[in-house]
């Protein structure tokens, strides 16, 4: 399990877990669950295009994440936010399918991109993902206070930090970057589980935001590490374990807040 060829997987998974747990905390606080699901799927045609053109997959993913942010913010003007996310998601997936079908590398790479592929991570990918995580965490640290304040009260945040529209765009960009880097590992469909499950559980165990953020990161690391270990032992897809363990986190958190509610 700790052989040399697994080293890349452990490294990348740890980075993905840290960023996923941290960004997930804000996704849960800001109720952006659907956008966080749509953005990694929006990045999916990027990977397909990269495989068609033979360039670095991460580059395509990051590029299309940016396109996804622009598309969602443009589409949701004067419109219901979840409709914009739904339509962008479907269109991006369909485009990705077309590109993969044209490239001829259809079924197999499709499965890996959607559900994750732990063992195929190369050295250049490790560096790319490290760079992206550093960038995402830096952006998040910079915007953490306004983001948190805005999730509590939009008016207060606008009074303290100015325009809310650009903040929303910046937040979506952070989500997009962090999901793009996670796609090669956990797969486009399940990145989102990793963000929502641990963060929602963390929220149930503490009322203090920074403590919840830390707990969310720790839980997310536990989920990803267990998922990789279980994948290694059973050879089942890593996405299955990430989805199941994240759901268990959520159920544990829900139970805890129900019990706390009954006790008070």
């Amino acid at each position, binding site marked *: 399990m700790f052989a040399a060829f697994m080293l890349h997987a452990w490294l990348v998974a740890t980075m993905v877990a840290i960023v996923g747990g941290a960004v997930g905390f804000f996704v*849960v606080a800001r*109720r952006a*669950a*659907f956008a*966080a*699901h749509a953005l990694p*799927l929006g990045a999916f045609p990027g990977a397909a295009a990269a495989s068609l053109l033979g360039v670095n997959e991460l580059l395509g993913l990051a590029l299309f994440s940016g396109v996804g942010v622009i598309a969602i913010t443009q589409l949701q003007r004067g*419109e*219901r*936010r*979840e*409709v914009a*996310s*739904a*339509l962008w*998601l*479907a*269109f991006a*997936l*369909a*485009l990705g*399918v*077309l590109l993969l*079908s*044209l490239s001829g590398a*259809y*079924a*197999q790479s*499709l*499965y890996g991109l*959607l*559900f*994750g592929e732990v063992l195929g991570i190369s050295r250049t990918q490790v560096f790319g993902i490290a760079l992206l995580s550093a960038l995402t965490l830096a952006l998040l640290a910079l915007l953490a206070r306004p983001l948190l304040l805005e999730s509590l009260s939009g008016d207060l945040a606008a009074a303290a930090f100015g325009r809310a529209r650009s903040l929303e765009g910046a937040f979506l960009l952070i989500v997009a970057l962090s999901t793009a880097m996670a796609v090669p590992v956990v*797969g486009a*469909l*399940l990145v*989102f*589980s990793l963000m*929502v*499950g641990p963060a*929602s559980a963390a929220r149930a165990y503490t009322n203090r935001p920074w403590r919840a953020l830390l707990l969310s990161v720790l839980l997310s690391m536990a989920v990803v590490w267990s998922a990789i270990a279980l994948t290694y032992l059973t050879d*089942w*897809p890593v*996405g*299955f*374990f*990430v*989805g*199941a363990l*994240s*759901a268990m986190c*959520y159920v544990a958190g829900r139970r805890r807040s129900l019990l706390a509610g009954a006790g008070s």
Partner: protein
Amino acid sequence: MSVLLSAVEFLHNEPVRVALIVGGGAALVCAVVGVATVMQRQSFAGHALADVSSAGGSAAYLLGLNPLLGFLGLAAAAAGVMEWSEIREARERDLLTGVVLGAGLGLAALLLYFASTVHSASGAAVAVLFGSMFTIPAAVVPLALAVALTALTVSALVHRPLLVSALSVDLARAQGIRVRAVSLAHALALALAVSLAAMTVGAILSTALLIGPAAAALRVARRPAAAVALAAAIGLGATWGGIYLAYESFYWTPGRGWPVSFFIVALVFAAYLTAGALAVRWPRRAVGLPSGCEAH
């Protein structure tokens, strides 16, 4: 003349005919159920049902059952779980929806993995998630039509009580509407619509058929009834147009057709953008709930 000949050839093709019937039924049901879904801001729930249903489709593939039954079983089960949990606060609903969706997709991943080891074929993921309209067996047609009819009947029955209880639960109770039964019935209709759409364009693209035509119609139509009619027209046009283009695409890149789901989703997306452009030129009063009653 040659255009006419190719059209005749197109309609004489058995897989094409099955695709036209099942796809048409799916588009109609999705238009009716979709308008109610978009107006009630349940797009995310509709999408989650579709994602979970992909696990059912994968199970059916693994066991060699009728795929529609697989989609239907899990979509209905997921709708039941989300209704049963009785979470009314929008934010909590979104989280639960997300978690159910993730667990469903994880299960789909596992079942697809088993399918690929048992049947040693890797095409299952593509067929379940992105649809394979031209391989729908003709034997599915009666079941598909029955599902479509049931969904349309249920939606027609709950249409009015659903609108009232979306406006105010107390008002609905005062009128003798059984709020929980109505919302459960709507969730069931949603599950039926989603599984039909999953057969047509694939589980994770079915959102486009459910939400797209309805959202486009709601941008320009002035009344819900007009929105349903327009959504049905857009859905049918996109589905049948997509099937035709996919059939034609065999001649564009010799030997290999483009995925039919791509054309359908692209046409739906184009309709949505066009409706947006029209709505900007001719502004109108929004169809939907008064602003104070919205979930967000």
